[in-house]
């Protein structure tokens, strides 16, 4: 399964894929360097990772045309690990991340994505954009005006040049022009070379130099778990975005496994953990990339460029990298979501904003998604809970009160049902008619029990109608009830 691919996947769009792959590779170089700096490791760690992850996912991945490499979302999670324990532990964590992702792939955990609502996805993407932008700020504080000038000039070239010519990647042009200019003028600004080692050889196979003990696992596991979750979230969201853009399906479980294998590979080649990248994948599609070849070309060209032009790459001023990253951040941000704030329901907006705020606060996308999903679930429960009402009717002649419960009774609406019963009314007979109600959980049943006992205490004779049918919905296993006619039987009027 993991290796299956058709000839079309690879050779269906050779020209488009090759050109797009080169464009992506050129944009990946500054990103990989920038993300290495965020994580606190040498640029070569991010560059080797980007090469390895791109190449492996191109072959194994479930979403042709998607670009995976070293990413900001992952880099942010490893900062403290690198600071406290060093690079070797990062490599071990990267491999463990891969193992966890492969397990997730086999357990088909990707299907859990259906609980992640649209608002959470939007929040995730926006938070990611904000994090990438914030990560650039250290490069822009306490620096000479030269750096600002370089960054501004970089942004100007990136956004204005495409108006004249769309056949040359404008980020590449910005990098070439401004590197040449700053070297020629001898500007005293920070360059990529000041930040640590660049790759000088093709990557070498190395087992991480950590003791294989339980202590190591204790250090590494929490990071690996976070990395695995964030990596899969971003990869699956990116895959969905590419599905939409290209109108083609993808295999999400296979993508999970491929991300895992790619991360194990990255760890063995001295690279950091990575995942799919929204911005780069959009650039790939925009540049005409569709097949597996585009990702393979991107990874290979990236490595060849860096190894053969090491000296030139080390002269790139940081200011230009910052401008490229600002572009990625702007392109990743979902601007439509700001416009939609006015028209979308408040609950959706709150879910989106909560996701953004939690992520920016914790620098961990997994927490943001968790908060967003929980909040969305609460809003949903609250809303469905409103679909319940009780009508009551008094029969003077027989001194009887009938309550008719209609709608969804569960933890969010059980209290409301109880409140609708008038226990203080002195009647000799009470009828609770559940024929149009659905009991979803034990809370609903115990609320009914409570009501029955209370009425009995007040001296009324009580009759409950239709309880069995109403409580048929309390089933954890949905096996028998997954046919439309069975669902109708349970949910229809009994």
């Amino acid at each position, binding site marked *: 399964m993991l290796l299956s691919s058709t000839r079309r996947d690879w050779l269906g769009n050779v020209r488009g894929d090759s050109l797009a792959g080169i464009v992506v590779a050129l944009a990946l170089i500054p990103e990989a360097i920038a993300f290495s700096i965020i994580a606190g490791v040498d640029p070569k760690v991010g560059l080797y990772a980007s090469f390895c992850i791109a190449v492996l996912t191109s072959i194994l991945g479930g979403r042709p045309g998607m670009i995976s490499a070293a990413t900001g979302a992952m880099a942010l999670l490893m900062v403290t690990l690198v600071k406290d324990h060093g690079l070797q532990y990062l490599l071990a964590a990267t491999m463990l991340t891969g193992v966890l992702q492969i397990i997730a792939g086999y357990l088909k955990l990707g299907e859990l994505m259906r609980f992640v609502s649209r608002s959470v996805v939007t929040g995730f993407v926006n938070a990611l954009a904000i994090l990438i932008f914030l990560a650039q700020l250290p490069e822009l504080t306490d620096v000479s005006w030269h750096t600002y000038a370089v960054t501004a000039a970089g942004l100007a070239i990136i956004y204005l040049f495409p108006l004249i010519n769309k056949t040359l990647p404008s980020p590449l042009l910005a990098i070439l022009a401004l590197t040449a200019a700053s070297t020629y003028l001898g500007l005293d600004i920070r360059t990529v070379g000041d930040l640590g080692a660049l790759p000088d050889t093709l990557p070498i196979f190395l087992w991480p130099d950590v003791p294989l003990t339980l202590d190591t696992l204790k250090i590494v596991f929490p990071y690996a778990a976070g990395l695995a979750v964030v990596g899969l979230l971003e990869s699956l969201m990116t895959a969905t975005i590419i599905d*939409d853009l290209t109108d083609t399906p993808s295999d999400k479980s296979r993508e999970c496994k491929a991300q895992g294998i790619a991360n194990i590979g990255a760890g063995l080649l001295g690279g950091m953990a990575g995942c799919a990248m929204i911005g780069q994948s959009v650039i790939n599609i925009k540049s005409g990339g569709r097949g597996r070849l585009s990702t393979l070309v991107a990874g290979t060209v990236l490595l060849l460029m860096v190894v053969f032009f090491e000296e030139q790459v080390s002269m790139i001023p940081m200011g230009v990298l910052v401008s490229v990253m600002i572009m990625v951040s702007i392109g990743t941000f979902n601007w439509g979501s700001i416009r939609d704030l006015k028209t979308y329901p408040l609950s959706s907006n709150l879910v989106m904003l909560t996701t953004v705020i939690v992520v920016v606060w914790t620098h961990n996308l997994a927490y943001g998604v968790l908060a967003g999903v929980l909040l969305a679930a609460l809003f949903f429960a609250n809303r469905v809970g409103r679909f319940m009402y009780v009508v009551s009717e008094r029969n003077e002649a027989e001194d009887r009160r009938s309550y008719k419960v209609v709608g969804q009774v569960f933890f969010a609406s059980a209290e409301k049902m109880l409140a609708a019963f008038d226990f203080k009314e002195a009647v000799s007979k009470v009828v609770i008619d559940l024929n149009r109600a659905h009991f979803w959980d034990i809370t609903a049943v115990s609320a009914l029990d409570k009501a029955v006992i209370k009425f009995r205490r007040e001296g009324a004779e009580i009759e409950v109608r239709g309880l069995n049918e109403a409580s048929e919905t309390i089933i954890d296993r949905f096996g028998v009830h997954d046919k439309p006619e069975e669902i109708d039987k349970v949910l229809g009027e009994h």
Partner: protein
Amino acid sequence: MSNETEKSVITEVLACIDGSRYSSAVCDYAAWFSLSLSAPLTLLHNLEHSENAASSDLSGAIGLGSREALLEELTSIEAQRNKLLIEQGKLMLDAAKARVVAAGIAAPTLKQRHDGLTESLIAMENDIRLLVLGVRGEEHAQDAHHLGGHLEASIRALHRPILVVNCDFKEPKKIMLAYDGSEASGKALELLVNSQRFTHLPVHLVTVGESPSTASALQDSATQKLQSAGHTVIAATLEGEPSKTLHSYQDDHDIDLTLMGAFSHTRLREWVLGSMTVKMLLSSSRPLLLLR
């Protein structure tokens, strides 16, 4: 075949049309089989979505709302392309319909579907009684040394009889059954035994490359079955490389339709020795009816 019709729902002869040079022959054969099997005929045109990017902007810059703008752009370009393809496909289907109506089919059903051909066929598999398709489609029209892009994948994926058309229509007069005792070739034998339409046609029962004792045992039992169903049987046991031998037998005896089992060996063996089915598909100059 006849008792199968009784218990199953209406299944159809499905002909795949793509406007390549075999399309009209596909129509003719499909019409002939539809009448023979008295099964309804459906003509399918599949809209392939091109892998080639509809647009490309190599600037590599993404800015405000790039993703939304890109989706909008790709959607409108592909909408135009697909509208044209649908229009074109309708014309092909109309021409095909006229052709099969002339051949005596009262009311063929016309279908158009998006997605790859193999995927479409898998989705429709349960309704297929017999699938008729050309050996090469529009993509590989010039390329005589390759099979069509979808053919092998479709044959492997489907478990229905498939007629592969590779020449102009000629009403089948002489039938060859390539019989090696495998389950798939057994199905081919059964099809001949059970089908009324084939009874008056002579059947060449050919076994290649088996040891003499096995070959004669296989042939005896098969001959018996065929004869009891009213066929004239011409039995032959041949030596040599199966696909080449069968091909030359086809030519020598002017066979117009060959029935054989397809892809009945393991993938590993096929990988090492090459698939006999693929070789037959490449070398045969007359239609093959493949059974899985």
